[in-house]
């Protein structure tokens, strides 16, 4: 075990959960990032405004965090640019085909015990673990 940070993980997780809860209580919408972004790619609808606003908040979080005096946590992107492009393509396509991602299925769906979200979360967790196992330990990258 290395770099285990249980307290900040729980606090940050609770913030993410609070965000999902508030979007439901205020706007009546599920905080699924891929669904919100995917919805923005469709023609303008009444949903366009809040979706764009949500994503703007998400993107502006680091400068706001730094502005509040927080020191930005370290970010290490190990993947090369071609690998990032391939991974992004798979993540975007897979999230839409599977009706959700880590937030929509993982945080919101598990929170309401949705069988679909349980199946999806179990599947993407297992495949991601296998992917890392193959890349890091079998191919030795």
């Amino acid at each position, binding site marked *: 075990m290395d*770099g285990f940070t*249980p307290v*900040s*993980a*729980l606090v*940050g997780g*609770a*913030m*993410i*959960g609070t965000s999902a*809860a*508030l*979007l439901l209580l*205020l*706007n*009546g*919408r599920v905080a699924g*990032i*891929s669904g919100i*972004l995917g919805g923005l*790619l469709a023609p303008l609808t009444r949903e366009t405004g809040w979706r*764009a606003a*949500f994503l703007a*908040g*998400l*993107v*502006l*979080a680091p400068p*706001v965090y730094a502005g509040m005096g927080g020191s930005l*946590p*370290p*970010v*290490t*992107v*190990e*993947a090369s*640019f071609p*690998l990032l*492009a*391939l*991974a*992004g*393509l*798979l*993540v975007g396509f*897979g999230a839409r*085909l599977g009706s959700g991602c880590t937030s929509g299925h993982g*945080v919101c769906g598990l*929170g309401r015990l*949705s*069988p*679909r979200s349980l*199946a999806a979360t179990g*599947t*993407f967790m297992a*495949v*991601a*673990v296998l992917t890392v196992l193959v890349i*890091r*330990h079998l191919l030795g990258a």
Partner: protein
Amino acid sequence: MAKMASAFAVGLLFGLGLLVSGMSDPAKVLAFLDLTGRWDPSLAFVMAGAVAVSAAGTLVARRRGRPLLASRLEIPARRDIDPRLVAGAAIFGLGWGLAGLCPGPALTLLTVAPAQAATFVAAMVAGMLLFRLVPPAAACSSPRRTDGVP
């Protein structure tokens, strides 16, 4: 306007949560997924905290019935586990495991690691557009219903 303001604040809180939890760092996500390496269980604690609060919020929202700023709750109602759901989740998991990035952290990193995050996000948008070529009958658009009956 109120809906946009609340969505902005809530999106900001989501991003701050990603930063505080450490999940905006792909290396930390990969350290969780790497069970046989130097395993970092932090992501499990992020999920536990997030799901607990989200579950409480869902209970309250369903009990109240009507959201404060909108006419109705829109919660996916499907319960069937179809091949598309599983295939989509598997493709998503493969991409997530390759780079340690999923949609939320990728968007939050646009201002932190712009070149890398923008590469991932552009490809992710391309993947989402590619999905729209999947025949509509086959594409699983989860039907939504008003789900606010106490």
